[in-house]
């Protein structure tokens, strides 16, 4: 079924060329302005790799050490650059190794196009060597997927793939191409970008009456509170967002993925939401009178117990994905649409205000949190290093200009709590899926996506060992990333839960590690390990100043906990400071 519409005037008059399906794949990449591909060759994708041999000038292929590394790198690339990340992998195990990354990209709305090789079409369903039913395996974790068995389909299917991946709420797309289609010669008439698919409306129609209702609620509000997610970044609406909160004098808190959409020291920025978020935003969610949710999806880690979440408030929800409206939290006014378009309309209609008393309330909670948690974390009274003071040192030495890529666990929460950002697309982490092993490959990709920026990968001792093989990619691609291992010699987050909720029964969280500095050395990556406060500043500085990649391992307190915390099953206002 053909659903692609080709605009007449855009149809370039190209001489018909007889080329292979593989070459058509690469021409599609070039036409979509792809410069970097993360991948790993194998039997069923060999024709594409053979064609790639002749395209090394146009396409920079980064050879990873495991396909999971390729897809996380593509995610990092997409998140730092705002472009579509591209992955090549072979059939069978190559393709199944992508599944974690697809699920991660799906839940965190990251635009990816993954090309997998597949066995010859006549072998489909025969349990051929390295055959897996990749399209069906990946259906729940892709925005769209498709199997190509005829080279003639390649140009328009890839055009659709890129269009679907990057428009609307972005997401991962997987295209499985059988080997015969890669080899097959066909009459290539050029590549036309996809602009419309009749069954797919990437942007819902903006309904002005809801904008008006939302503006009215905001204008009448005494205690309005903005909570925002990655939608602001994905919609490239940082400026529109800033204008909106500044005009309305609206305190704004971010989800883990919304972080860095506005500068962390903006006077209206009141902190992070969620389980390990800041004290004020969590408590005051249950005190505000109008809650304005922008490009976020009310994840359970943000809302805590739903039946006690913001029940007193009227709720305005701006989202590009209509299925998010009312999914978890019942909305008073739904504002469907791309927030790049809806925010200016809303800003126009709201009155210029300052909610000084209300904002001061947030500041008072911040002060309580500083006294109870933050001060001790950043200026510890013991000799034992904390994760927080390491992040503070990074902030000071990078002036908040680095991209910080985090893995998953305690260090992730600490980094997100204490990192300072001046520019958007600076916080790259696996939010929805919580994929340990994400950070190292994602940092590699992030650097390719933003080569001019400093990229610091903050990783725990557990997560690092999940994708440690990507040090090989760092070595071979000669990329410059800073690897900061926060080693507490535990699987810290699980240990914290076992301490708090399982009577300190530490069940299989005591993880041993190799000598990370020696491991890095084996990959010709310089590094050092420190465990004393007086070494910290120099060590971080040395890492940042080092030419090329560098690994700094910091030994931190073994049994430090991350607070505040909204325990599972509790309301956000029941957040614990200790």
């Amino acid at each position, binding site marked *: *079924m053909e*659903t692609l*519409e080709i605009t007449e005037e855009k149809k370039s008059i190209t001489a018909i060329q007889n080329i292979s399906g593989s070459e058509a794949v690469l021409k599609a990449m070039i036409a979509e302005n792809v410069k970097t591909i993360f991948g790993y060759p194998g039997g069923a994708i060999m024709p594409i790799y053979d064609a790639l041999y002749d395209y090394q000038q146009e396409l920079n292929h980064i050879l990873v050490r495991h396909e999971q590394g390729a897809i996380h790198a593509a995610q990092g690339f997409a998140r730092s650059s705002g472009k579509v990340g591209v992955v090549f992998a072979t059939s069978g195990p190559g393709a199944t190794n992508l599944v974690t990354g697809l699920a991660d990209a799906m839940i965190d709305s990251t635009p990816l196009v993954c090309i997998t090789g597949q066995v010859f079409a006549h072998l489909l369903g025969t349990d051929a060597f390295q055959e897996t039913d990749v*399209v*069906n395996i990946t*259906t*729940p974790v892709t*925005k*769209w*997927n*498709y*199997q190509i068995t005829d080279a003639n389909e390649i140009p328009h299917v890839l055009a659709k793939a890129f269009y*679907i991946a990057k428009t609307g709420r972005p997401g991962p797309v997987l295209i499985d191409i059988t080997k015969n289609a890669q080899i097959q010669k066909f009459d290539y008439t050029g590549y036309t970008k996809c*602009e*419309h*698919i*009749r*069954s*797919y*409306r990437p942007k*819902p*129609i903006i*309904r002005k*009456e809801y904008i008006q209702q939302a503006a009215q609620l905001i204008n009448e509000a005494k205690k309005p509170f903005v909570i925002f997610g990655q939608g602001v970044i994905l919609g490239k609406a940082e400026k529109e967002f800033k204008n909106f909160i500044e005009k309305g004098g609206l305190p704004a808190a971010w989800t883990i993925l919304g972080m860095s959409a506005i500068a962390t020291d903006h006077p209206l920025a009141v902190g992070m939401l969620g389980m390990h978020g800041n004290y004020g935003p969590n408590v005051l969610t249950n005190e505000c009178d109008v809650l304005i949710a922008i490009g976020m999806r009310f994840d359970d880690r943000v809302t805590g117990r739903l039946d006690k979440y913001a029940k007193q408030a009227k709720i305005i929800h701006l989202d590009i*994905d*209509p*299925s998010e409206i*009312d*999914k978890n939290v019942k909305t008073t006014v*739904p504002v469907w649409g791309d927030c790049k378009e809806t925010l200016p309309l809303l800003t126009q209609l709201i009155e210029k205000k300052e909610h000084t008393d209300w904002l001061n309330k947030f500041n008072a909670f911040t002060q309580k949190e500083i006294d109870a948690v933050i001060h001790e974390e950043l200026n510890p009274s013991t000799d034992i290093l904390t994760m927080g003071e390491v992040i503070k040192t990074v902030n000071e030495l990078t002036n908040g200009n680095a991209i910080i890529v985090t893995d998953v666990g305690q260090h992730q929460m600490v980094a997100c709590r204490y990192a300072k950002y001046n520019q958007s697309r600076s916080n790259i982490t696996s939010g929805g899926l919580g994929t340990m092993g994400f950070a190292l490959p994602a940092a590699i990709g992030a650097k390719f996506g933003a080569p001019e920026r400093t990229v610091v990968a903050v990783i725990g001792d557990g997560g690092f060992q999940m994708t440690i093989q990507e040090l090989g990619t760092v070595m071979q691609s000669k990329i410059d990333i800073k690897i900061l291992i926060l080693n507490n010699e535990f699987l810290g987050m699980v240990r914290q839960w076992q301490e708090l909720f399982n009577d300190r029964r530490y069940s299989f969280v005591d993880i041993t590690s190799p000598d990370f500095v020696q491991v890095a050395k084996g990959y010709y990556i310089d590094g050092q390990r420190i465990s004393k406060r007086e070494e910290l500043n120099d060590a971080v500085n040395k890492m940042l100043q080092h030419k090329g990649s560098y690994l700094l391992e910091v030994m931190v307190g073994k049994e430090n906990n991350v607070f505040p915390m909204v325990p599972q099953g509790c309301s956000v206002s029941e957040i614990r400071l200790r």
Partner: protein
Amino acid sequence: MNKQEYTITVYTENQVGLLNRIAIIFSRRKINIESLNVSPSESESIHRFTIVINETEEVVRKLCRQIEKQVEVLKAYYNTNEEIIWQEMALYKVPTDIIAEKVKVERLLHQHGARAVVIRKDYTIFETTGHREETEGLIKALEPYGLIEFVRSARVAIIKASNGFHEKLKEFEQKEPGEELIENEFLDKQEEVFTM
């Protein structure tokens, strides 16, 4: 909210794999599909899924939004049984000798609105169409005479208030829905309109 029977009507492109994409929306949430039918629709090249589930309206509405989110789905509607005209078809295989000997066949068929599709020496096949009670009524009537095989089709349903999909399809084929369309067509239809 109480659970009740809802019929979901989905207009889609005809694409390999779409059935799976739609089915897993239910299975992921551990919701049993009572009946599923895929057929052509009134619009050429557009397929029509008819899915029956037992759920609360809130769940059904969310399911429909998830279904509509799929790239190759154009529209998903949900309706209660009062809002639709629906039918199921059933086939029954019975031994011809017993039936011929013991039953006033004409009367039985008439009673159940059924007809004989095949009559052979060894077996006879009846067919009936209707609601669940009707197809089940004939099972009960035939059971004493040695019902050999029974099969019932999925539900097919027509939405009473629907004007069909022809006009809607034209909207979808437009690149940008016009201003007029927004004002006239979609105001105050929050519950009905998801993607458009």
